[in-house]
């Protein structure tokens, strides 16, 4: 609605105040978790969470006694591995979809979309059986493979939308100058796609970092990503909410920071397909 030029008082009342309330609802739980995590455990149940007299006690305890460092490393390995697999397989596929028209294109494109629509529970059972047979249970590789089931189709679609934004005439110019198709892809299209590739990679990283059910089912003992570690904390330290919330803050940190860094580009990539549809 074209309410662009409203008097300040009116704007305060019908735009900024409601926005503030919604923002408080959206961020409240997170802020509450943070405040709890910096409250001294002994004071938590007598005076309640408070930012006065903040302490990092819970965080040092988290790393000293619970060994959160290893879990962070596991998550990092799995998430990075998934980024590499997802991106390397999807770049050429996306180029093919973006530049050529060929028989079966629509079906092939839709099959990538279809994958993300299937219930995860349909995949998690056979993947468990498969990894057990291959002896891959509780390895980083198993989790990378499992996360790739989500990452590959997603990054194919994201990369298509980025590549469609690069004019075809650039490829053609490169090819008249003697480049092959692959040469044009490598020398012309890829460099222009770098921002899109980074955004896609970061999104894959975030989703793999946040992933919980595969990590629980296919990992768990030796390989225990941060999400599983946080969930185990809930069981073991049931009433030590200071420690628990500190674990939550640490577990959510990479996703939050990365997301805020790239949110603009990411959102435009994510919504483009939907808006056009």
């Amino acid at each position: 609605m074209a309410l662009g030029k409203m008097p300040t008082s009116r704007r305060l009342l019908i735009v900024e105040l409601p926005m503030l309330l919604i923002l408080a609802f959206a961020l409240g739980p997170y802020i509450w978790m943070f405040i709890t995590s910096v409250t001294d455990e002994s004071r938590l149940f007598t005076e309640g969470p408070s930012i006065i007299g903040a302490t990092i006690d819970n965080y040092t305890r988290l790393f000293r006694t619970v060994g959160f460092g290893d879990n962070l490393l596991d998550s990092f390995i799995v998430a990075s591995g998934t980024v590499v697999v997802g991106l390397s397989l999807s770049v050429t596929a996306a180029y093919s979809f973006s530049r050529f028209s060929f028989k079966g294109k629509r079906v092939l494109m839709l099959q990538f979309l279809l994958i993300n629509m299937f219930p995860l529970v349909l995949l998690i059972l056979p993947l468990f059986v498969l990894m057990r047979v291959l002896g891959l249970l509780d390895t980083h590789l198993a989790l990378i493979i499992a996360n790739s089931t989500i990452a590959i189709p997603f990054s194919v679609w994201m990369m298509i939308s980025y590549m469609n934004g690069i004019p075809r005439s650039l490829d053609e110019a490169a090819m008249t100058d003697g480049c092959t198709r692959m040469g044009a892809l490598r020398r012309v299209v890829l460099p222009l796609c770098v921002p899109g590739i980074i955004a896609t990679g970061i999104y894959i990283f975030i989703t793999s970092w946040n992933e919980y059910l595969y990590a629980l089912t296919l990992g768990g003992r030796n390989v225990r990503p941060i999400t599983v570690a946080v969930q185990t904390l809930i069981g073991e330290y049931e009433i030590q909410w200071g420690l628990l919330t500190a674990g939550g803050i640490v577990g959510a940190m990479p996703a939050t920071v990365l997301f805020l860094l790239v949110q603009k580009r990411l959102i435009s990539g994510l919504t483009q397909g939907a808006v056009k549809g």
Partner: protein
Amino acid sequence: MQTHNGPESADDAGRQSRRRLSKRILPYAMLSPAVLVTLTIVFLPMLQTAWMSLHEYVLFRPKEFKFIGFDNFVAALQDEVFWISLKHTIIWIGVTIPGQMLLGLVTALLLNQEFRWRALARALIIIPWALPSVVIALMWVWIYDSNYGVLNDFMLRLGLVEQAVPWLADPDLALGAIILTLTWQGFPFFAVMILAGLQSIPKSYYEAASLDGASAWRQFWHITLPGISGVLVTAVLLRTIWVANSFDVIFVMTGGGPGYSTYTLPLYAFIKARTNLDFGYGSALAVLFTFLLMGLVLIYLRRTGKAVQ
């Protein structure tokens, strides 16, 4: 001349046809790695689920992989817990999705206005969506805590309740509490999608309508809503499919309890396989659920398929 030219043009033709052939193969060659990998790690395992669902297969008795036809499916349809889970799945989607959509719509309309901290608000609003589901479950369990939770504290102080409410331990309230959590998690997605839709509506439409003296409400009804209807349908379909599929937040928050009061279908399938190690029955439940969801998926694919053309 002709004899001289013959082999050369044949050679040329050969090279050309080879080039044409490679041109025809190239798209498929570039696709094949991604397609082959997804076939191996997605579609084959799915077929295996279908195969397992036709067998009696309990993981700690691996020798007894016995073909039993559709017995698992028949058992599921006679299973009371299946119907309870189905009912919860429907209630859960039926309340969560409209909740997310309405809140998302209001947020998007607000974010589409001009105010000084708009960019900041737009960046921050997305945070719930970016958080790991385990962390979301953790912080909401803490908020709902019956002894020290902030929600009880808040409501006691306002005098809305007389004594602390055990939100997640009360069978009548647990599903509602989880629905609130998921509404909170998912509304930013709607907000962002709808905002993109709003921004694609030309400003001139509103200017013309204002000149004609159309009220804000009429502008919303006749310009805004039709303008975002496409995005809205896509977002609802996508979210419904995702929300229906996801069960990680419930799994961490209540594990389906108390009793069966927060069981949903995918959660039931997962628990059957994980806790009872009954992979045959779990697979059958997963397959049944997939069939139930298939209608929505097909509608979504048809819409997107048209857009791809």
